[in-house]
């Protein structure tokens, strides 16, 4: 390498690539790092949990160690009815999201309130915790650790709410990543022209603490960031997931019947071969009605996925 040109060349190379990385990495990091979390970001990171893609807590993306989003209609300590409110339940061993682990992510004002009024630093993964999104009355949102402020336990909240009010949305988001839903359904209404059909595009602070963001780039299907605002029917979702052609004959979405697992809600074995044979007869005009779609079990994967979709408001 003892050739003068290459000494000059390698210094220029360092300058060029270093300059490029200064502008494209360092400078944006100052801007992006100073973004404060909105209430949407707080809600999202609390229901989705620490990580929805591959992680050591959930290596096969089966929905292990995920929080629950719970609709509470009664106080879990006293049993007294209360204004319906959402709580995010982290059972023992469930990793906390970015905003709890690194409150800087929330932005200065939310960090201060979350620590002083919300006591989030007292949350302990080995015990579990219940969180809520609160506002100080002037639209400054913060996270409250209800286990510290009100003594709510994860078990108590889950028991009080009952299964129908517990959304497995976090486990569902893992399925969204594992099953590659995001290869067709984006989570990013575009700023320029998607408002009318797919709803408002997300704002700057709506993503703090979310991982992965999974915007999607190759849209072959409707954007679903606000899908539950357009269609809130669980029954429609169930039919559509089992075989999209039941409700939309021209759909090219794959069937996700395998997410039902072996048995239905009554513990009865699902006969997929029979269902498909009968469906083929229906498609070919030999039957008037399609076969009945089995009701899914409450611990099936499709329940998680439907909970996730119904949570996209």
């Amino acid at each position, binding site marked *: 390498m003892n050739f003068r040109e290459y000494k000059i060349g390698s210094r220029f190379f360092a300058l060029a690539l270093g300059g490029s990385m200064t502008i*494209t990495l360092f400078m*944006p990091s100052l801007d992006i790092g100073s973004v404060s979390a909105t209430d949407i970001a707080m809600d999202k990171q609390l229901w989705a949990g620490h990580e929805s893609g591959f992680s050591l807590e959930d290596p*096969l993306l089966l929905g292990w160690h995920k929080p629950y989003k719970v609709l509470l209609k009664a106080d879990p300590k006293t049993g007294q009815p209360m204004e319906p409110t959402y709580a995010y339940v982290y059972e023992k061993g469930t990793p906390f999201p970015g905003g709890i682990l690194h409150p800087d992510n929330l932005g200065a004002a939310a960090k201060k309130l979350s620590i002083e009024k919300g006591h989030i630093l007292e949350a302990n993964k080995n015990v579990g915790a219940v969180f809520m999104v609160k506002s100080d009355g002037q639209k400054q949102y913060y996270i409250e650790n209800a286990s510290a402020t009100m003594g709510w336990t994860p078990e108590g909240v889950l028991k009080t709410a009952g299964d129908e009010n517990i959304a497995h949305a976090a486990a569902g988001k893992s399925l969204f990543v594992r099953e590659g839903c995001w290869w067709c359904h984006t989570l990013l209404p*575009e700023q320029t022209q998607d408002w009318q059909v797919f709803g408002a595009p997300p704002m700057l602070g709506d993503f703090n603490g979310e991982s992965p963001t999974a915007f999607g780039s190759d849209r072959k299907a409707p954007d679903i960031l606000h899908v539950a605002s357009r269609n809130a029917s669980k029954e429609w979702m169930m039919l559509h997931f089992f075989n999209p052609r039941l409700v939309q004959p021209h759909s090219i979405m*794959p069937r996700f019947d395998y997410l039902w697992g072996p048995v239905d809600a009554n513990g009865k074995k699902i006969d997929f071969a029979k269902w498909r044979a009968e469906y083929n007869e229906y498609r070919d005009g030999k039957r008037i009605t399609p076969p009945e779609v089995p009701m899914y079990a409450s611990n099936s994967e499709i329940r998680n996925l439907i909970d996730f979709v119904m949570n996209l408001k």
Partner: protein
Amino acid sequence: MLKYLMARNEDIPPGSSAVYWGFSSIVWFVIGTGLGAFNAAKLAFPDFVTGLEFLSFGHMRQVHVMAVIFGWISMAFGMAMMYITPALGNTKLWSEKLGIWNAFLWNVGLSLGLTVLWWGMNSGREYSDFPWFIDLYILCFMCIPLGINVWMTIIHRKTQGIYTTNWFFAAGTFMISIVLIVGNLPEYFHLTGLTEAYLTWWNAHNILGLWITPVAAAIAYYTIPKVTGNPLYSHRIGHLHFWSVVVFYSTPAAHHLMSAPLPEWLKSFASVEGVLILVPAIAFVSNILMTMQGKWNMFVENLEIRFTVTGCLMAIPLNMQGGFQQTRAINWYIHGTGWIVAHAHLALLGFSTFLEAAAVYLGLQTIMKRKLWSLTLGNIHFWFLLIGFTTYWVSMTIAGLIQGAGKIYEVPYIDVVIAEHPYMIARWLGGSLVFTGNCFWLFNMWMTARAGTVIPQGRMPHELAYER
């Protein structure tokens, strides 16, 4: 080939590792395009192979992408580096043994990575879909050893200067390592939110811009002068190409997220830099086409030249699209549509694949000292690739324009799906043609190794007549 894993470096015949890399790349090409055609069939006929989780579209789409990027394209690069780098330094490869281990570890790591990806273990980040332990493996056992071999060979060269191709090889292997470290920071350190989104596309953009595009071009800088016998038209335009790649191609990452809430200055900056990608593009294409002066008959007569020049010609529409489709004026219309899918295939299956295929054809014949077994099969491969790709590109571009129109006129999405159906069938047919062509290629190369005419010492493959 595996017997050399335990041999002493001196006992391994020069070029062995290049042959290993070359055949591996062709096998991955067959696998990758086969998966692509299978996936395309599912988009055309959604009930084609249904009810099995592991054959569902969402599990296989990223396996196709990773198999062609890291299996076909990157292993063809490895092949080219293993034989072009020493040839241009008038020396031997620094370590054949490292080259063979590198190819072996590449195949093992990629098989493992694609298996876990297929299983559903992924990071949810496009173009860095692998979970972080596979990312680390790719960096440490695939890219860095390749870089070490290339750099050490260049350092131990017996020529004074370094030829254009080797600048790109050295810079490319260095830059891909940096890109894989920085681009995967969100997975290593659990960075979240917009940082994760932006770094995902910083990584994706730079894998294309600092690895695939420059290294593919570098191969053409070798193939065209070597086979035609013409010297490179301009060393100085080569300089312009090299430096403008480093400066302009490393900066527009944010133009992939033009409709996301990133800082506006970053999007504007990226968009301007994106147009400036035309500088290296025009420098490259003009340099290669001018080098062809007086030898245009070889565009018809010689398979390697035909592949390379076709690839260079495809760089023209590729960069015209690439330069302008990311500006705000156009991006709002085509963002997220099939247009982009067509553009991505123009880059990887059009431009870059044609250059790499030429390098693998030329390299395997040169090192094995065997003339290509069948020109007919070579021609079939070329035309199947070209017609298949063109069918794909035209149909997806039209589908993308339909989708864009549907988007801005707020047509119910299902009507877009219905309108796209014929183009999805065309896409599947095009992909199947590419896959079939590659099967012929694998067979042809296998027969070349076994039964190709021996090339006498001191002769180039193209100096011998084709026999079949």
